[in-house]
Each structure stands twice: as structure tokens, then as C-alpha cells.
């Protein structure tokens, strides 16, 4: 009996001590290194962004940022773990629109719901851009649309993923321009490039980052943004050419749904600071990224808006 009481006392002591430490930890967040989980392959856009952010984040937050990967299912494997993560803010996960919206809508068991992921912020966008090879017969968007109207279904556009920004973007553009092009999904933006270079597809509906890398080989016809993009000042937007088509992927950070607001806000501020650091901004824009910022409350609304929008697009798609 005596032994039992002793053990019980020790156990309770441990719990008390950890409990105290736990609450202190919350007060002075961050006390330990933060793990930044990337849901996609190393070398990809999410990875590059995280590695670029890492040194600045470490300075602002005053702690080490450890980048780890949890790859699979187009991000779903990583995001399905978020609801179960400890809400202490020490694990942050990169997430993307439209993926987090489309996956639960499209699939049966993603393991998470869009609302399960508590968004800290959205910090970056990669707009869709339509490109053709340098020696292609299409020199302007008008040539492209004209040909497409005369030869429905013959133009093939490669892009990254199914039900992704590239895919939906192609569908949206088809709708708006009244044409029919065939979208060919590849597993990742990089995967589509050899097919493009080898002439196996007519063009690509891809992200601006890809074009920044392959400037000499890709001829952009138009970009799907509200205003022209700084690194491609000569590329018109679809909007100015008369097509109301604005689309792209967004990247941000999410945490476990029950994470306290102070921690979320602290993280959001940190990312905002990083985004506004001139050298960082320059580097990212040179690579083709567009830096944007939506804080925690704005993000919620943004996600809701996008959800409505994508739901309507999907309904239209179902008819195909």
C-alpha cells in the first residue's frame, strides 16, 4: 500500500510539473523548435518556398524551424493528420487552395474536412498561365482561341494534377472563351515539362513559377490574374483580352483546429513580416511567385468564398 502511494505521488508530481511547464510554454511561445511540414515532394514549389522562408522565420520567431515532409495523396496524407495534431503551435503544415477545398468535395475519405484545417494565413499565389512553345504557330491568345474554335478538342494542354488549379483553370477558360481544349494531367508541374518540350502536347496551362524557370523555352500567351505580373510585364492578362478568367493556386499555413488564437496570431504576424522583407519578396517574385497576404480572419472568408466558387464549377463539370 505504501509503495502504491509513493508511486502515485511521483506520478502526480510529474503531471503537475509537466502541466506547469505546458502552460508556461504557451505563454512564451515559441520555446522549442517548430516543425514545418511540407505536403509535397522536396524540390517542389512548396519546398522551395519553405526553404526560402526558413531563415527569416527563424529570425523573427527566435527559434529553429525544422522542415519535414509528409508526402502523398496530393497533400491529403499530411492534411488528414492536422485535426489530430496537438494544438500547441509547434507543428505547422503548408496547405494549398484549391486542393483543401476540392479534395473533401471530390473524394470519399480524405481524412479531413476543409473546415478542420485552421488557416493561419495565405502567403503566396502562383497564378495560372497559358504557354506554348517558342516555335508554336500561336503567337497571341487570339490565334490560339481562333484555332481552338475551328478545331474543337484538338488542342492539348498539359498541367499539374486533376481537379487542381491548372485543371479547373482550363475548364474555366474553355467556358469563358467558348472553346474546347483537352486537358492532360501530369503528376506535378515538372512532370509536364518534358512532354511540352518534346512537342507531345500543344501547350501548358501551368503556374508562373514554371515559366520563370523555362523562360527561353516557353512563350506565355496570357496570365490569369487581375493585373499584369511584374516579372512578365509583356504578358497580357486574360481579363484585358476580354476573358474573365482569374485562377491559380494559393499557399498558406494551417495548424490544428483547437490551437489558441494568440499562437495563431503570432505565427501570422511572423509570416507577414517575412513576406514583407524586401530581399525575400524579390527572390520569390523572381522565381515567379506572387506574394499576397491573408491573415487568420480574412483567410476564413477567403476559403468560404472559394468553396462556393469551386462548388459551382464542379457542378458544371459534372455535366461533362
Amino acid at each position, binding site marked *: 500500500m505504501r509503495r502504491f502511494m509513493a508511486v502515485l505521488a511521483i506520478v502526480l508530481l510529474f503531471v503537475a510539473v509537466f502541466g506547469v511547464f505546458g502552460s508556461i510554454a504557451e505563454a512564451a511561445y515559441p520555446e522549442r523548435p517548430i*516543425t514545418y511540414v511540407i505536403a509535397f515532394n522536396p524540390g517542389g514549389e512548396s519546398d522551395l518556398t519553405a526553404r526560402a522562408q526558413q531563415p527569416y522565420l527563424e529570425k523573427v520567431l527566435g527559434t529553429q524551424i525544422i522542415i519535414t515532409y509528409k508526402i502523398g495523396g496530393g497533400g491529403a496524407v499530411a492534411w488528414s493528420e492536422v485535426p489530430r495534431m496537438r494544438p500547441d503551435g509547434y507543428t505547422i503544415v503548408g496547405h494549398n487552395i484549391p486542393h483543401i477545398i476540392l479534395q473533401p468535395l471530390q473524394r470519399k475519405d480524405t481524412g479531413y474536412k476543409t473546415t478542420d484545417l485552421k488557416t493561419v494565413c495565405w502567403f503566396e499565389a502562383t497564378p495560372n498561365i497559358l504557354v506554348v512553345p517558342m516555335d508554336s504557330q500561336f503567337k497571341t491568345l487570339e490565334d490560339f482561341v481562333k484555332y481552338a474554335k475551328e478545331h474543337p478538342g484538338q488542342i492539348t494542354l498539359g498541367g499539374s494534377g486533376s481537379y487542381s488549379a491548372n485543371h479547373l483553370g482550363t475548364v474555366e477558360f474553355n467556358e469563358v472563351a467558348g472553346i474546347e481544349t483537352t486537358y492532360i494531367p501530369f503528376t506535378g508541374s515538372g512532370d509536364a515539362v518534358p512532354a511540352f518540350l518534346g512537342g507531345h502536347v500543344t501547350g501548358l496551362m501551368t503556374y508562373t513559377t514554371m515559366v520563370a524557370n523555362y523562360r527561353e523555352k516557353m512563350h506565355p500567351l496570357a496570365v490569369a490574374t487581375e493585373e499584369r505580373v511584374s516579372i512578365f510585364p509583356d504578358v497580357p492578362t486574360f481579363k484585358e483580352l476580354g476573358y474573365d478568367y482569374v485562377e491559380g493556386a494559393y499557399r498558406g499555413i494551417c495548424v490544428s483546429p483547437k490551437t489558441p488564437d494568440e499562437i495563431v496570431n503570432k505565427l501570422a504576424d511572423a509570416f507577414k513580416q517575412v513576406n514583407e522583407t524586401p530581399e525575400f519578396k524579390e527572390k520569390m517574385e523572381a522565381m515567379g511567385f506572387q506574394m499576397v497576404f491573408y491573415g487568420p480572419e480574412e483567410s476564413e472568408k477567403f476559403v468560404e468564398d472559394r468553396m462556393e466558387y469551386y462548388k459551382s464549377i464542379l457542378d458544371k463539370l459534372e455535366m461533362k
Partner: protein
Amino acid sequence: MMLNSDLYGGLIMLTFAGMFWLQMGDFTKFGLMFPRVIIALLAFLGVVMIVKAKVKPQYVKSFLKDINKYMAATMIWSLVWVLSATYVGFFVASVVSMWAIQWSLSSERNLRISAISLAVAIGSVFVIYYVFTKYLYIFFPEGFLF
């Protein structure tokens, strides 16, 4: 005892084909193309094997007899190890299982061997744990204990 390897092989193939077939939900036209062919092919091969099992069977020695107590202990403990790690924590599960396996496989079981086994178990798991968490930033499941 001799096992009709074609019969059992065929049954296994059919089982897999069946399992996957049941899981075919409403796939899109393109998601369906490839698996449909493969499932059909597998089922077909399964049937061919079963037919061969009657006509020109190939017998193998039953391997079930091969499983002696040492092998069984290893197989069972590896199962326990893997399944319990997420509940009791990777470290504890590994140390306990490694210790248990060494114990099962020892020819002479005395206190000395037991102590060495425990030391080996704790030592190796600790090294792995340290290298992976400190340097490679790969963290193991924790569970209740550790």
C-alpha cells in the same frame, strides 16, 4: 503434407481481385480504365491457376511444418511490436519486443543472457532514436508511454 500450390496460389489471386473489385466505387472514366483491365486479368489468371491445379498441379512441401517455435515467436513478436508501437510508444514497444525476441531465440536462458539482451535492446533503440530525432528530424509515434 503436400500443398497444391496452384490451388492456393489461384485462390489468393482471386481473393485479391475480389477485394479490389469490391472497392471499385464510382470512378471516373479515366480512373477506371487501367484497374478494370488489371482486376479482370488477375481474376482470369486466378481461374487458370485453379484449373491447372486440377489438371497438372504443382505440389510444394507444406511450409507450415517448417514453422518451429523460434520462428513462430519471431513472427508473433514482430506483429505485436508493430501493432503496439502506436499505442504504447515506439521506444517502449521496440525495447520490449527486441528483448522478448532475443529471449525466445536464446538457447540457454539465464539472468546473464537476459541482462545482455535488455542492454542490447535499450542500446540499439536509443541510438536509432537519437540519430533520427536529433539529426534527421524524423520523429517516432509516441502513444501512451514513450
